[in-house]
């Protein structure tokens, strides 16, 4: 079942179109930076973008910083919202369950497919960022790649930090996916499931910025999204990264549990 869902994911043109569009924006930004040589002024624009001119090896991180606030969550929410509700909307969910397939197995297969899409998207953006950065922005040697603390980053340092960043952002997006996947088991409309997931994220973003919500801030899903920046400090600040991974794990466990509890016994009419 998992293999079937993964093959379906990889063969569907929509998967590659959405990932292609995700990768396109960082490429466009890199082209503008390379042609004009004008980076955002310090303190402005996405994280690390001000430091990438002549430092193309940092561009994977900057590329993920560009798509993280908006486009990546949208793509993941749409994919996860589609998982179950899409089958129901197309009228194929009932036929899927007529096969000797348990509902829990089907849900697990859908989950694995969504996680695969999420990691694929994050890795694709990072890889595109690297190729684009090195090609267009260069690693001239005039500018040493440094941490935010100004200390030098060796290629090995940069590689493991970027790798952990990809995993961290991927796991944060699995948190987004779990919201939409749960909603996808509640409704037959994939659009409603995706928009519901995005509504949760927008609400979380508003509350994170609100001092009055300080008591719950550390438990909100988007609270630690930007903690990956701490990987590029020296010494690495692990505290928020660990907290972010834990918070996402909490949401993933609770929401997938709820998705399972609902989907395993709901009436499937489509």
């Amino acid at each position, binding site marked *: 079942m998992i293999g079937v869902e993964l093959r379906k994911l990889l063969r569907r043109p929509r998967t590659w179109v959405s990932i292609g569009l995700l990768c396109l924006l960082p490429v466009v930004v890199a082209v503008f930076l390379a042609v004009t040589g004008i980076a955002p002024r310090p*303190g402005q624009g996405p994280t690390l973008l001000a430091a990438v001119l002549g430092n193309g090896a940092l561009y994977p991180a900057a590329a993920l910083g560009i798509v993280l606030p908006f486009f990546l969550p949208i793509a993941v929410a749409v994919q996860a919202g589609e998982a179950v509700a899409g089958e129901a909307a197309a009228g194929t969910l009932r036929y899927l369950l007529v096969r000797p397939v348990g509902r829990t197995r089907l849900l697990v297969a859908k989950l694995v497919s969504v996680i695969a899409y999420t990691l694929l998207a994050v890795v694709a953006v990072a890889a595109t960022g690297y190729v684009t950065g090195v090609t267009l922005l260069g690693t001239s040697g005039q500018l040493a790649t440094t941490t*935010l603390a100004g200390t030098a980053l060796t290629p090995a340092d940069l590689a493991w930090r970027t790798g952990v960043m990809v995993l961290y952002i991927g796991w944060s997006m699995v948190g987004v996916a779990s919201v939409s996947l749960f909603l996808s088991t509640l409704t037959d409309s994939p659009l409603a499931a995706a928009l519901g997931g995005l509504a949760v994220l927008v609400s979380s973003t508003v509350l994170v910025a609100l001092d009055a919500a300080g008591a719950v801030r550390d438990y909100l899903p988007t609270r630690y999204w930007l903690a990956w920046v701490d990987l590029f400090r020296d010494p690495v*600040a692990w505290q928020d990264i660990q907290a972010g991974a834990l918070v996402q794990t909490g949401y993933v466990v609770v929401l997938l549990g709820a998705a399972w509890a609902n989907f395993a016994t709901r009436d499937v009419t489509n």
Partner: protein
Amino acid sequence: MSTVVTSQARRRWLAVGSGTLLLATLLGVGPWLRATVAVEPAGTTPQAVLDRALASADVAFSATGESRGGLALPDLSGFGDLAALLGGTTDTRVWWGGPRRWRVDTVDALGETDTYGQAGSVTTWDYESRRLVTVVGDASARLPRADDLLAPTAARRLLGAVGPGDRISSLPARRVDGRVTDGVRVEPGDPRSTVAHADVWVDRATGLPLRLAVVGSGGTDALVSELSQVRLGQPDDAVLTPPAAPTARRSVESAPDLVARVAAASPWDMPDRLAGLGAVGPDLAGAPTYGDGLVRVAVLPLPPRTAEDVMRGATSAGSATEEVDGGRIVRIGSNLLNAVVVRGADQWHAYVVTGLVDPALLDAVAADLLADPPPPTRGFR
């Protein structure tokens, strides 16, 4: 009617609900229990706790810090990030090896600004502008930096200013960051102070102040600073060494900011008493401070052009200019820190008078300065 399906659904939802409740309990109630679990009362006097806090500058530690300022100050040109520092939240990472060997990083999602304290100099690395600035020597006056608002540093400064007229009392012991702390409350004895009280929680094991809360006379928190993730012990030498940053723009300066530059160049021989307040210390050069205990007023002489810029900035931020005997003043107020920009009618004498005191006291200081303008020092005659 209950069916097999509905009872299965109930069991599943019960399992998910129980798991969620357990998780929420662990995450929410756990820290609360940890913070409030019974702590043995302090066996010492508040004065002893205060003395231990003042003697804690050599306690080596690493931690993360957060300071939340509630002062609504206008953003004035030349005064750097003062308004943001005292009116917003500042997140820091701290490595403290001692008063002459420390590092404080101010971090946000876009970068960081790291300050390295070393014997005889302070070096600042700003990632966003890629500048590495070393300031040599100790300025007699300067703008506050993020490291000044760290709980231990700010608490020691505040407790060090407590005078015989101020009252200190004990607060119930509590846990801060999981560590047992003894609380001390300081209340100004002089009603002209805008501080209602300041509460300091001091680590019982080391004497390190871990939390400071300053409450203004309006009853609201004006500044709260706290350390978390505290680890005792000497930080690595590598962490305390400024970066080589080969591509950074480097400079070596003798004054860190506008206030330090202006204070160093002050041409006036300042009086030893203003509005009934005596000068703190014999040195009246630069930006002298007057008063005692928690009622202190700093007077910063300004060059005429700078004074005009500051007045223009303050009036465009909503403050009104008032004509008074001998010149003009502009009042800048917040719930804790007040300031008056003063410009003499001779167009040469100008000052910023500031302190955690009632505006009426600042007006009195301004009136004295305008009524009897200080003469130039010997070198400027």
